[in-house]
């Protein structure tokens, strides 16, 4: 698992990358009540605002972690946004994307580096 400074995690599944937010981020945001996902088959550039999450406290944007194409989104979040709190690194994933250059992942933090980042 890789992490961004925006508290997203990325996990490689075959030729796709699954993206969600970290346990730490989910905890800090509080109870999540709404998730607005992008359309599948959307081409995105790194740092594009692709997901809006609203917690009981505020709205936050989730940025595209890398250049690529969003190929699948987690439709279950529309009816059950609380999945992001219950299982942020599992069932609470946001989208799967195809990344042109998988080596870009190497520049992201690994788990140990992320733990240090949030400490």
């Amino acid at each position: 698992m890789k992490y961004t400074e925006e508290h997203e995690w990325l996990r490689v599944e075959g030729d796709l990358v699954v993206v969600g937010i970290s346990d730490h981020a989910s905890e800090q945001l509080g109870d999540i009540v709404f998730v607005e996902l992008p359309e599948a088959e959307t081409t995105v550039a790194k740092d594009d605002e692709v997901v809006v999450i609203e917690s009981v406290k505020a709205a936050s944007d989730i940025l595209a972690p890398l250049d690529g194409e969003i190929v699948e989104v987690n439709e279950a979040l529309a009816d059950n946004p609380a999945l992001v709190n219950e299982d942020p690194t599992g069932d609470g994933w946001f989208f799967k994307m195809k990344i042109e250059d998988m080596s870009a992942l190497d520049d992201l933090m690994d788990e140990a580096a992320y733990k240090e980042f949030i400490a």
Partner: protein
Amino acid sequence: MADTTGADLKQTVLNALHRDMGAKMVPFAGYDMPVQYKLGVMQEHLHTRAKAGLFDVSHMGQVILRPKSGDVADAALALETLVPVALLELKEGRQRYALFTNDAGGIDDDLMVANRGDHLFVVVNAACKDADIAHMQANLSDTCDVTPITDRALIALQGPEAERALAVLAPAVAEMKFMDVATVDIMGADCWVSRSGYSGEDGYEVSIPNDRAEEITRALIADEAVELIGLGARDSLRLEAGLCLYGNDLDPTTSPVEANLNWAMQKARRAGGAREGGFPGAERILKELADGPSRLRVGLLPEGRAPMRAGVELFAEEEGGAPIGTVTSGAFGPSIERPMAMGYVATSHSATGTRLFGEVRGKRLPVTVADMPFRAATYKR
């Protein structure tokens, strides 16, 4: 995201207790206050509706108005010069909601006024308390001693188990009705209790001497039905109950008529009443009571799941046109399991059931004008 150390912030006497109980502290109205505890906002809200929640509201201003004549009617008449509310009729042992208005007919704060026999006891909002106290001292000192009470904490115990939990320590509170006030002995401390609150639930507010506040609060939360509740859930509870938050839904430019608070302005202070007018901004307020306001506070239910928060502009049409209103409070309602809001709209668009559009992140999303409260209150009348 970092925890605030609160170096420049004031603290209530329960500050150590909050930290001890795992509160996330935030600055609020100059105080270091708990926004949530370990349960989180959603569960704290639901717990209050299901059992009982205890809120530290010691940051609010407690003030005594003691009439120099010894007759509480003189204090009531004096305070009536600052509020469009009938206080002369407020009986001993009863409490009433009131509003400080300004010369422009806007609202400078909302408050609770209790008749405690030989004096009035007033509770005002934390953010406004210094100004409110100065306002009362400037205008009431001829007839009253205006004394801020700084040696007492204030807690609210709200929810269906509030009566049982408080009655364990003070059986007399079970006999009180909504908006009754009484002096009650709790664990040997002289406490001022009202059967009221700001959650839409039955419950109490209890003013406790500072040196006994933590001990009594700990005794209450030792009850398995009682949880500490932070400001986050306090906000969603009051919004579900259709209650205004000063600074969001009420402000110095908004009149009580626009705010749909006509129920708080009794006949005696209206045109043709025994003590008509005689409060700041009476000209505008009486005119709006007669002719209707140009805009009105309404409840709003977004159709989708996206919350519409304070500042969202409201439109009559899905495309084009100028805004006809603005959201002033918006959140997810944990008990009604949907987003909810309140705001101000042109009176022409204020009828219940009117479909409007709120602009959220550049998109106009449907929202319907709805009756409040969103969840029926459970006061013990």
